């Protein structure tokens, strides 16, 4: 039976969730969704770029700017925004750029998961420790994303394990790991510095 105390308790428990997901009120929710959508647009834009790479034997090395967008949106605006950037970026990007929806948009969920994981923590971009935390959580998000992509591919799309490992998992990791370890913290720091300059009182 629902009591007044229980109801109050539910409200108390929901508060951290809303704060964590930056959905405290209408204004905050608006900005969270807007930034997520802007991230999705940037994701789509970066996905059209032909990035330089180097193949050594069967390993492909390079930078993936798309996952930087997801991680940064998650880091700066929380998990919901980060998830939106990844999910909408992949799902709508696939539809607009390639006229397809792959695996019922489960791949979008895989990418959104990265933004979600990164956004679960808060960061002080002025400190190296926090930037390192950002790198590590981005790495965790990346690995989860890559594994989920392969699982979805094998189970839903039905492609071979060899293709999943050789053409999805390996390139994702050999390009993604340097990206999240190097480019994500550097970009976060630069954006933070620009933010401080544009908004001297902080945000």
């Amino acid at each position: 039976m629902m009591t007044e105390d229980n109801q109050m308790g539910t409200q108390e428990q929901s508060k951290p969730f809303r704060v964590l997901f930056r959905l405290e009120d209408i204004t905050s929710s608006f900005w969270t969704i807007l930034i997520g959508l802007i991230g999705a647009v940037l994701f789509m834009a970066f996905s059209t770029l032909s990035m330089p790479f180097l193949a050594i034997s069967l390993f492909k090395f390079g930078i993936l700017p798309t996952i930087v967008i997801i991680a940064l949106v998650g880091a700066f605006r929380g998990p919901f925004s980060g998830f939106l950037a990844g999910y909408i970026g992949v799902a709508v990007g696939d539809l607009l750029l390639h006229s397809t929806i792959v695996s019922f948009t489960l791949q979008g969920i895989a990418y959104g998961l990265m933004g979600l994981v990164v956004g679960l923590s808060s960061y002080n971009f002025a400190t190296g420790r926090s930037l390192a935390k950002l790198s590590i959580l981005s790495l965790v998000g990346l690995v989860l994303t890559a594994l989920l992509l392969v699982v979805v591919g094998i189970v839903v799309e039905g492609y071979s394990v060899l293709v999943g490992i050789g053409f999805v998992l390996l390139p994702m990791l050999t390009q993604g790991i340097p990206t999240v370890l190097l480019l994500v913290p550097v970009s976060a720091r630069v954006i933070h510095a620009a933010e401080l300059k544009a908004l001297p009182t902080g945000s």
Partner: protein
Amino acid sequence: MKTTVMSNKFFTITLIGLIVFAGLSFGNLPAPQITVGVQVVDGVTFRFADYMAIDHLQLAIFNYLNTLVSSDFQPYGSWDGWYADDFFGLQHYVLAFMQYSVSMMFESTLGYRTDYYRNFSRDLIRKMNTTEAEWCNNSIEYREWSNPSYNFLDYWWPNTTTPDSDDLYVGGFRGPANIMWTGHYALMMSLFERNFNTGEMRDELGWFVADWNNSLTTDGFGNPKEGGIWGVGLIPCEPYIVFVQCNSIPIVTTELYDNMYNTSYMEGGMWEYGLDFIEANMTDNYGLFTDGYYMMKPTGFVESPTGPDYTFPGPSLDRITNDGRRQVSSYCNGWALAFLEYTWGGKTIPLYPAYIDVYGRELSGDRMYIIDSYNHPSTFGTFDILGTLFTLHLAKQRGDFVTRDRILNFLWPAFNQVWSEDGRTMHFDTMSLEPFLQSAMAFGWIWAKSPVSIKDLADARSPDFWNYPYISKADDANIWVYQAVWDSLKDAFILNIRVDATATLTFSNFVHTPTAYSSGYALGELVSLGDGFRLTLDPGVYNLVIK
């Protein structure tokens, strides 16, 4: 801001690491895009984007292929850089499909017909026709046919073991039961004649077409027989099995031969029985083609105790599932759907969506590949790559450029681009995966990207075409010809060219001294010579209208 940013050791270290890593992995950038402008000359507007074009990468790849093919680099029976020693039985296919690919490229700049392209095409045909007598075990004849492991030589129809006077010998390399070589060889020759019109291969080509007609409409001795020698209206390979894909090659050849020389083999019903046979006996539940039909028990065939139960004649069966399913493959369909479209578009075009649906597998929005067989979709190997390569051209021919690009994104970005020091040649380095793929991945790019498909090439050029102005001589080693075509409606030659070092081009067939225009302004008249008109260009990139 700079101070704020740099006052953090972690940031500084990661920034240095990023710069080092980005520097080390900085490569494989896209080749320069060609420029296509708009010009108005004498009140007539010329939009270069309206004309067919090939890009810088395709030309660099062609220059690389030339080092493998041209007799200037190696004799016909040498195979340096082909890495084909472990792929004897496949090598001639590489030669054939290379010819089809470059023919699409030649057609894209059909007003550029110097020795460079012509000699390449001729040398490729000569490599295809290397004989045991001259090149021993390095010949295609040995590698494709008479290699002892194939057991193709002692073959008579219908009796394979005790031939008597009523049997027909079909075991020759050039004989009626080797369509997997004769078909390709003849199509290579017919494309050469279509593109360059020298007449030098016409007789040999005509012999093959007549021989096929004899095989398909008579008992082989000239007596009319429905379904031909083997009663199926198709010509076998190996030599006891017929394939849709292999027969699609001589069908295109016959169409083109009829179109070029005003013969009527197709109208005469040469292939009708075979197409009906395919429809009735070589399709699956989707209406797509199955991969192979045995007209007889193959010589030396040993039925595996754990394999499927074959009946002869009957369809080839899947050897992995082993439950009597027919053998199906994407390479069979990707190939046949494209090459049969000219003749049988009413059948093949509606099958394309089903083909992509059944055989396509999506890795992401921008990447997909084609599985070898839907009977066992979770395996991956050579034939999946083969099916993927064949589908590139089919998707292009169908105008499905989204699928074409998604397939390109699957394979090619895995390989480094290797450019020569002078920037003239480029190939994709496949050595870590499979060296034999190197030439195929090179011409595969042209196969996928050139704006012409095999269906276009089945039409002959109009008789008027040979009177149009064209580039007959040039300093080919100094130029990149992206667009070259005579616009017969506007009476002007369109030339989009990059010049590395001062180069001269000779134009033939102009009936008056032409003037070259750039950006709508006259650069000057071409210089009249005995054999045409000469244009000299300094290094640079030009969009020229010549009229």
